[in-house]
């Protein structure tokens, strides 16, 4: 199958890979770029486990054509921490027991990151709205919502 070269920015790193015709972004990231943080849940846009940010906006990478991200900027959970320093969202998830099996977590974190970038002081309802495209089988969502609100408060404290 003919391969197409594709260049984009992945978590601040200039990245170049070859993709197959019609390959989806999730596969391109996992197999091509070796970033295993976005997860394959359903492959059909239902679960949100594959959520990544393209130019800051959450997208389901399983439904995105890889070639559509040429020259664009992508963020995944693999780029959240700064060295050993966890992102406040990761810390809040950890301290609030918001991950059990952890399969939904990367998608939740990306949806939350996009929310907090656009709306640093979300209400509980706005948090729920922001993660409403992400399914979790384990936690019952409550600790995830609480963790995102906690992280928002921490980030606000830091900004103030």
């Amino acid at each position: 199958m003919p391969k197409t070269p594709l260049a984009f920015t992945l978590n601040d790193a200039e990245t170049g890979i070859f993709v197959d015709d019609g390959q989806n972004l999730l596969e391109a990231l996992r197999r091509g770029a070796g970033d295993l943080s976005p997860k394959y849940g359903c492959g059909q846009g239902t679960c949100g486990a594959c959520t990544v940010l393209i130019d800051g906006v959450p997208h389901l990478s399983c439904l995105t054509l890889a070639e559509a991200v040429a020259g664009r900027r992508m963020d995944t959970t693999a780029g959240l921490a700064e060295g050993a320093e966890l992102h406040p969202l990761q810390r809040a998830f950890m301290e609030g027991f918001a991950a059990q099996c952890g399969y939904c977590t990367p998608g939740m974190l990306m949806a939350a990151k996009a929310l907090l970038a656009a709306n640093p002081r979300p209400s509980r309802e706005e948090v729920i709205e922001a993660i409403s495209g992400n399914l979790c089988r384990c936690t019952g969502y409550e600790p995830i919502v609480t963790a995102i609100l906690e992280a928002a408060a921490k980030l606000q404290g830091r900004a103030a």
Partner: protein
Amino acid sequence: MTRHSGRGFACINYPIGMNLGGDPAQALVHSTPDGKFMVTLSAIDLGQGMKSVTRQIAAEALGVPLADVYVDTADSDTGPHDMGSFASRGTHRVGNAVIRAASEARAQMMEAAAEELEVSAQDLDTDGAGNIHVKGAPSRQITVADTAIAAQFKQGRTLSGRGIFLIEPSGVDPDTGEMSPVTTYAHAALIVDLDVDDETGEVEVTQINSAYEVGRALNPKLVEQQLIGGAWMGVSHALYETTEPYYPDRSHGPEDFNTYLMPGPGEIVPHDIAVLERPAADAPYGGKGPGEMCANPVLPAVANAVYNAVGVRVDKLPITPEKILRGIRTNGGARPGPRRPGV
């Protein structure tokens, strides 16, 4: 259209583990040359916290810091045998096996330290912070790390232990069908409040109140989280999930994840939990663990609450709007059950 509120109650007596073949679990523990300990298991962590809890149990039984214990559940081909992570058996069965393996490894660690300190192993104790000292003379001590190094490079000894937990197999009495499936039971009582719309048949669960008795809660935060998440799954099983809505007929069943119903973040039900700790005699440090019990009482409580709200007794899961509406029609209208005053 009228929304009818209903309240349902359920309580359960829940067997921990099972009886089949004595329900064995095995654990192996060994130290690395730098005095860390590796616990090898074939029971796996599905997100319920088995790795965390077996790590705590091993650290406690070894007398070493939690940070110095690793749990490896990587591969059931190469690990010691285990029946698996199901039947709510993890904490109890695997935990007991881990205590045995860790205790044997601890005994060897104490022997190795005794040889280094030139005392008898009976006179030694651990401080839980990575040191082994002579009882009553804490300054005469050796670190666990130095003990492991000495064992490895000087004494030619491993610090390791084997553990298996097996319950008394109990056959089925051919005359009465009686058997004793397990050695210990956990308990729960749960109340569900919900509203039923008598025009659409839709159910909204508004509140769950529960009390769980799980033996000692070895990791209280994990127990609470497992109970919250499990109750959500119970609501999902009670009201949403099915692969065959007209079982055994496959028609109208979901064909993929898009059409398989599950509640989302918008359907979070407030849930107040009381955890009662009654340490069980044959359980690891008294902990039985919540396991599948965290979802089970929700289903009958929802069914009872629906009956209380509109007088429809649904005995097939899930309790869909269609079944409720058919029931209401058969009854000639919604028949709200009695309310206690003030509820």
